[in-house]
């Protein structure tokens, strides 16, 4: 088990390095940050001074070598716009993003899984149909649209909730719901189909024959066996969540990493973009490692050596 863990952790290093290379190249190929950060009528002299100050006058491979050696030590350089360490800018906003992501994930699991189970158990009844209908809409509706729509309904018309910003629990409601909406739909659908499969299995019939109550049959024997694919989907969707915060945070003025990412990309603020990409990649890798380890907890037949 420990050996497996060590091997997986070592394997993440080339993954992260690959991401480092790709994100570096993509950002540097996308244009010159001086064009976006300085006004267009600035003298060429001032432009050169800016490039020199941020090392942008060096050949790209020199920039890459110095960037990657620094990055390995956790130093992504200073933001071109904020003149502060890029990693600090990201970490300062991480709490807000974590709050939003955790709330969205909690909603996903607390709503998505039970909805899927109930839909499967009551297959082809109105309950099932309404779950399937709602999830279809949920998966089809883009989150920026859903976000604006919910602002108009709940903040402007009903005046129940604030239009944006972070502060109280009320501020969290709309962004977390918006961010989780597609995920709830996806998780409900996956749970439903896995449960349908499991509920037809012999061991379910055996459990019932033993005289176990329906609740135990469905939630313990059924869900536990159906949960592995659901867990895989949830793990993979952490990536989706990271992308989703970019849109949701922008719509709801949420002071998190996603919004910083958008601004940094538009301004070609290379150090910040790279820090965010690498951090998100790291989170994705770690979460999926945890998911892999959870398989063994759920299914004792799985063991890692």
């Amino acid at each position, binding site marked *: 088990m420990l050996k497996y863990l060590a091997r997986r952790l070592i394997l993440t290093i080339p993954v992260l390095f690959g991401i480092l290379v790709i994100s570096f190249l993509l950002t540097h190929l996308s244009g010159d940050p001086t064009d976006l950060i300085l006004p267009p009528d600035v003298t060429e002299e001032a432009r050169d001074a800016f490039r020199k*100050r941020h090392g942008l006058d060096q050949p790209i491979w020199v920039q890459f070598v110095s960037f990657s050696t620094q990055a390995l030590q956790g130093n992504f350089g200073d933001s071109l716009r904020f003149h502060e360490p890029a990693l600090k*800018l990201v970490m300062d906003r991480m709490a807000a993003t974590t709050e939003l992501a955790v709330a969205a994930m909690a909603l996903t699991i607390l709503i998505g899984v039970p909805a899927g189970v109930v839909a499967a158990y009551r297959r082809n009844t109105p309950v099932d149909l309404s779950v399937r209908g709602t999830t279809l809409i949920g998966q089809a509706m883009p989150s920026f649209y859903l976000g604006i729509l919910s*602002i108009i309904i709940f903040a402007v018309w009903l005046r129940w909730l604030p239009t944006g910003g972070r502060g109280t629990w009320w501020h969290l409601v709309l962004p977390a719901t918006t961010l989780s909406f597609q995920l709830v739909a996806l998780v409900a659908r996956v749970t439903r189909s896995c449960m349908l499969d499991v509920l037809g299995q012999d061991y379910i019939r055996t459990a019932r024959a033993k005289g176990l109550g329906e609740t135990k049959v469905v939630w313990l024997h059924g869900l536990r066996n159906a949960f592995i694919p659901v867990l895989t989907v949830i793990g993979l969707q952490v990536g989706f969540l990271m992308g989703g915060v970019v849109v949701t945070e922008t719509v*709801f*003025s949420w*002071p998190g990493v996603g919004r910083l990412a958008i601004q940094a990309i538009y301004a070609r603020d290379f150090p910040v973009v790279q820090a965010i990409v690498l951090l998100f990649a790291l989170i994705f890798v770690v979460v999926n490692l945890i998911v892999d380890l959870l398989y063994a907890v759920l299914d004792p037949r799985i063991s890692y050596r």
Partner: protein
Amino acid sequence: MFSQIKRSIAAVALAAVLVGPAAAETLTIAQNFDPQTLWPNGTTASDNLNAGSAMVESLFWQDPRSGEIEPLLATGFELETPTSVLLALREGVTFTNGEPMNADAVVHSIGVFIDKELTPAYAQVAQAFEGAEKVDDLTVRITLKNPYPPLALALSQIYVVPPKHWEEVGLEAFGQQPVGTGPFKFSEWVRDDRLVMELNEDYWGELPKGIDGLVWRPVPDDSARVAGLTTGEYDVVKDLPVAAIPSLEGQEGVTLVPVASYRIYQIGLSSLPQHESPLQDKRVRQALNYAVDQKAIIDALFFGKAKALNGQVLREPQLGFNPQIKDYPYDPEKARALLAEAGYPDGFEITFKFPSGRYAQDREVSEAVAGMLGKVGVKTEMIALEPGEFLRQLRSKELAPMYFVGLAPQDDPAFQASQYVSTWRYTTIANEELDALAEAGAKEMDLEKRRRIYQDMMALMHDEAPIIFLYQGLDLYGTDAKLKNFLPRGDGRMFFYGVTYED
């Protein structure tokens, strides 16, 4: 739920009002971006400057109500010689940390302003400055490299910082928590969330009435800013989308403040020899001007609230505006005739580049122009560009032969004119006469002569038609109707001098 909470808070607030003195309002201001730095000379981005200059003041300021450069920390200046300026400072002003605002502070601040390393964004305005020295406690002598007509404008962009504090904390930290002489002082800044300022009770001048503080909120989404204005969460909203005009116009408790922007929108028509196209011919460039109906664009895409250009790039209040010139009338027949005369009776095909997402309605305007040109036989191959790529191509002249652009130079005819000089980085016209006029205007110190020079230049440009003259941009602000005397400037700058909040 939230409304109930708000109501109970309101009840508590009301109780406080009933017992306490007249309550003042804390204004919540929603802008597009969180500032990067609160040191105003750190950038030229209006969102930064608006917040920063509420705390750190400049020597002079340009009042949007009059358009004149008015005294602020300096009370006036006079020219000893064409290249030596005596600056008189206001007496009895202190920074909020107790340092005196005097000649030492101003000499220090000018030194920072003209340092290209520290203030690259101001390099163009600052390049005529040689240095500054203290004459006495309230007088500073500024030395210029050459006579400089836009001097007053440059002085309105020099922000005065306390030298001791600056030396102690350095530029970066100063930008995070500035100390100035302004009507407001720094209180708290949670990045990307809120920037809080409280009233500077010891302010040297008159404080805005009925306002006890400012909260700046970055709200990047257009619709969210509109929603927040509607619900009363924001008292001032900058950069409202044009599409929100109809829904906000009838809204109770909300005042719409349309401001004619300094940004001049135009279609660049390259006549540089390296950009071969039918646009080399002046008649073709004029024909395209006749073919475009600016009025229709303004009415349809800006609800009639943007301003026409009068066939020139200088705006009406600016020195050098030529009242003789009018916009090219919309006349497709004349356009076709001119095209035929130039040898294109059936029109021609041309690429047309435009940014998507950089300016308000950029794609819509470009499509409208393309449609109008199509009617006189000019078929455009439209290429939409991401804003960053657009700027890169603008500077490397890769947008030619034809491109949509909005240019917002500093508010002096010299800066407007210099954009059409052959040596300018992204100009796409090379005309010796135009160059000579721009050069003469940039040096001429006599006001009337200078006006004449630019009027001649505008007339020549109108005839040469290096661009299709489109419109002056529209900046749309919305405020709580109780806020009075609030008038932003055409460069996206808002000030709180003379503003009142009346309950």
